[in-house]
């Protein structure tokens, strides 16, 4: 797999893999992250990731030659076995009606029954590529192509916290109130991101997610438990 680098300045460099959303690339990025942290930890200010890019901010200067050397080091990692400790998390979602105001609209757009959309959305296994856009917002890969939907041309002023939505080739959960151009199909009753909690998120890059349909009563019950800190997110 070809790895390129782009040196923005002597303390900021971006490495990139082929521009596709793929779990292979996600695994490579994770592997490189662990490698960099172990080998060069002290010189690193921050490692930030996209789908196919890894950006490295440094305390120390880096040269073009250093970048070429790093690319070679990354390539050598290929043979090593990966740590497959990724978890699969079960995220409860109440679909439709008051929980997801755009479900019926989305059903119309795709000429599908609402139940079919719920079925397809909750059948998928999604992988967490990285966090971005909003604090705690997960970029998830793995949406059923049937559900791909161009974003709204005019974003909604307010997507409520916990909204589960579809936009473009992606699905996601709004971790906080925000304007948004995606179609809200449901709502998750638990707070997935809390900056005052340690750690702020339970779901790590590389983990997997399944959405589990729940009804309005369960939504309320789980919500109450979560508020009291008594709800444990299930994973296997």
């Amino acid at each position, binding site marked *: 797999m070809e790895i390129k680098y782009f040196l923005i*300045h002597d303390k900021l460099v*971006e490495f990139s893999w082929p521009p596709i959303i793929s779990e292979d690339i996600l695994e490579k990025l994770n592997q490189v992250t662990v490698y960099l942290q172990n080998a060069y930890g002290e010189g690193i200010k921050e490692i*930030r990731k996209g789908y196919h890019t890894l*950006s490295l901010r440094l305390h120390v200067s880096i040269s073009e030659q250093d970048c070429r050397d790093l690319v070679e080091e990354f390539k050598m990692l290929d043979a090593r076995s990966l740590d497959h400790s990724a978890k699969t998390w079960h995220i409860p979602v109440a679909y439709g009606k008051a929980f997801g105001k755009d479900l019926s609209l989305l059903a119309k757009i795709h000429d599908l029954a609402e139940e079919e959309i719920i079925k397809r959305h909750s059948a998928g296994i999604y992988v967490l590529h990285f*966090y*971005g856009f909003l*604090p*705690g*917002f997960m970029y998830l890969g793995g949406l059923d192509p049937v559900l791909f939907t161009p974003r709204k041309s005019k974003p909604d002023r307010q997507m409520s916290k916990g909204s589960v939505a579809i936009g473009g080739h992606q699905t996601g959960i709004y971790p906080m*109130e925000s304007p948004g151009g995606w179609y809200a199909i449901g709502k998750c009753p638990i707070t997935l991101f809390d900056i005052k909690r340690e750690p702020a998120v339970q779901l790590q890059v590389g983990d997997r997610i399944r959405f589990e349909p729940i009804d309005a009563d369960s939504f309320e019950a789980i919500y109450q438990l979560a508020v009291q800190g008594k709800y444990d997110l299930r994973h296997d």
Partner: protein
Amino acid sequence: MIKIPSYIHFTRPGMLTTVQDLGRFDMAGYGVPYSGAMDRYSLAQVNFLLSNPKGAAVLEMTNLGPEMVFERSTRVVFAGAEAEILLNNKRIVKNGQVIEIQEDDCLSIEKFRKGQWLYMGVQGGFETEEVAGSKSWYPQITERGYIQKNDTLCYLSEEERFYPPVETKAKVRSDWYRTAQIKAYPGPEWDMLPTLLKNRITKKTFSVSDLVSRMAYQLTEEIPNELPGILTSPVYPGTVQLTPSGKLLLLMRDAQVTGGYPRILQIDNISLNILCQKRPGEKIKFSIL
């Protein structure tokens, strides 16, 4: 040393008055923006002049400014934008002066003459909540997103004598942000631009539009282009994005951590402080490093 917790009461909140320090750098992996003072140079100046720690929390203000009343004595210093600052409705306060504040003193920030962001440091820094290593305000990350009417801010009133770090009367100049030149490094997608567009971007004089926020400054002039979008990738304060409709977005301190528009430039740190002090209508010119 006696330090008494005291409060500033805001009788007028101002437009976008916030508490800022150097920023929150450890949570970007979870999608949390850095935040921090828009103009870090002025943040450093006020803290230096008060002998505060480098990253002490200060008040960031913009047009329209706030009006505030101090509960107990302290010392404050202003830097950054040039505004008309009134102490008890008279004496004009100058940037860089250490101002002795007495009980019940009222400071009012009136008209901004130059620059976009004004900073007020208080002796010892503000005693506000620290979240993930920073006191910088960001909506829904910190309890408060911006100052509202009748809000209060805590500081520690010190009885002790103050020894200024500089002997002479410091004069803080504001001509450092007068230059139109903004230095920038080519960004990861710069080479996707045809030479014609590269030349246009480096030769053209742009002006800052009315769309100015802590997240991004948008330029008025557009660069029609045919660049494809990119897969969502990292962005930073200072990243210049070119949208499909030709808009140039200059990302600022509250920028998202990732974005899907081509990143054509990365503004140098010093130039980013200069840029943030530009007001709508003011001119800038990129110079490529």
